[in-house]
């Protein structure tokens, strides 16, 4: 980023274009009940967040033969949580009386933290993880900054990055200078 004056960095939940598009797609779906059912399926690594709010859940269709086809997009290429997500989707739908379920993974368009819901941002923060900061006006998301991410515990901006890579691929590790607590930052990608 060189022209910072023309860019706005926001760590409040903002309705990104990617999110609005997902919401419109869901609202047009003929099977709103199935979407509501899958709201119960959480990210195995961040159980505060549903797959919908994470942006992984892309589409649900009920085919003429009753089979339900779910489309998800993987977060990171090597994310080991993908298999658990797939199994949770299948068991949730089966328990609700839908024995035939297919889960497909779609690579394109690639998952991005821009697809997170505004509610997902709040859920992350409440869980102790700083949500990804959006860079409005950037063509690609900014990489994890060295400092200035708002501490999810005390709200201070006086924080610094300890490690680019945290306990899972999707997080970086920060420390707050005000309350001294370390915290995870959900990396923008």
């Amino acid at each position, binding site marked *: 980023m060189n022209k910072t004056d023309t860019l706005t960095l926001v760590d409040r939940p903002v309705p990104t274009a990617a999110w609005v598009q997902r919401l419109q797609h869901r609202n047009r779906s003929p099977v709103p009940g199935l979407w509501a059912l899958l709201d119960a399926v959480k990210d195995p690594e961040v159980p505060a967040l549903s797959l919908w709010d994470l942006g992984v859940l892309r589409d649900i269709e009920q085919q003429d033969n009753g089979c339900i086809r779910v489309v998800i997009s*993987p977060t*990171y*290429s*090597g*994310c*080991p949580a993908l298999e658990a997500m797939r199994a949770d989707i299948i068991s949730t739908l089966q328990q609700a009386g839908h024995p035939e379920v297919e889960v497909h993974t*779609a*690579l*394109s*368009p*690639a*998952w*991005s933290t821009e697809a997170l819901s505004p509610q997902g941002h709040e859920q992350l923060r409440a869980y102790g993880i700083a949500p990804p900061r959006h860079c409005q006006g950037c063509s*690609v998301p900014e*990489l*994890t900054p060295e400092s200035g991410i708002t501490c999810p515990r005390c709200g201070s901006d006086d924080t610094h990055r*300890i*490690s*680019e*890579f*945290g*306990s*899972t*691929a999707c997080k970086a*590790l920060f420390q707050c200078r005000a309350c001294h607590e370390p915290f995870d930052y959900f*990396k923008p*990608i």
Partner: protein
Amino acid sequence: MTDQDLRQATQAYAVRLGDDALILGHRLSEWTSRAPFLEEDLALQNVALDYIGRARMFYGYAAELSADGRTEDDFAYLRDARQFSNLLIHELPRGDFAFTMARQLLTDVFSSLYLEQLLRSTDATLAGIAAKAAKETRYHLRRSREWALRLGDGTDESHARMVRAIDELWGYTHELFELDALEQQLADAGIGVDNAALRPAWLKQVSAILTEATLRVPEDSWVVRGGRTGYHTENLGHILSEMQSVHRAYPGVSW
């Protein structure tokens, strides 16, 4: 080329890219619990996972194109060294930390240029994999660049180790920019990348980073090649014997 020929060539191409990702990912995973400190351990594991995930996507696509019942596991676990087509730079032993970060720098700059082209592929699956990998590579490159600066412009010891690492690696970088007939056909068809065209941009970026790190750009005085045709260094056999041992001892095992 007929559609069938193109399909076969694309399958072979996906296997090659899968081999590159798997072997480098495996090398990085060897640092687990051996990195200089905990955060670096986590970082190397995360990057390794990105590469192994990338290998799964390429192998999965290769399996789909083969349509002969093979799965990603057949490509990873049931082929011998002569059948692996990864570029040699990826199989060199991990060396010391400087060597690992020097290799990452050289290959991350390459990957960022390569993936930027591959995501324009007329093949939607290759383009999709590239789009995903390109996002991760931005993070990888920033980190390997920072380490190159820190080690190159660090202590006498770290500087000397970086000089040695770059010198030892340089002759293996030429292979990154060579195309054989198959890759040329795919590049002409808009499916694959013309990697030969990437060298000027790569050299410019790498030179700028090395110079900033107080390191010199080596002379192009020696070249090693052979990975794409299955002629490997002795190191690949050692990797495979470790990586494939469980699968070969207990065929079809699952857990």
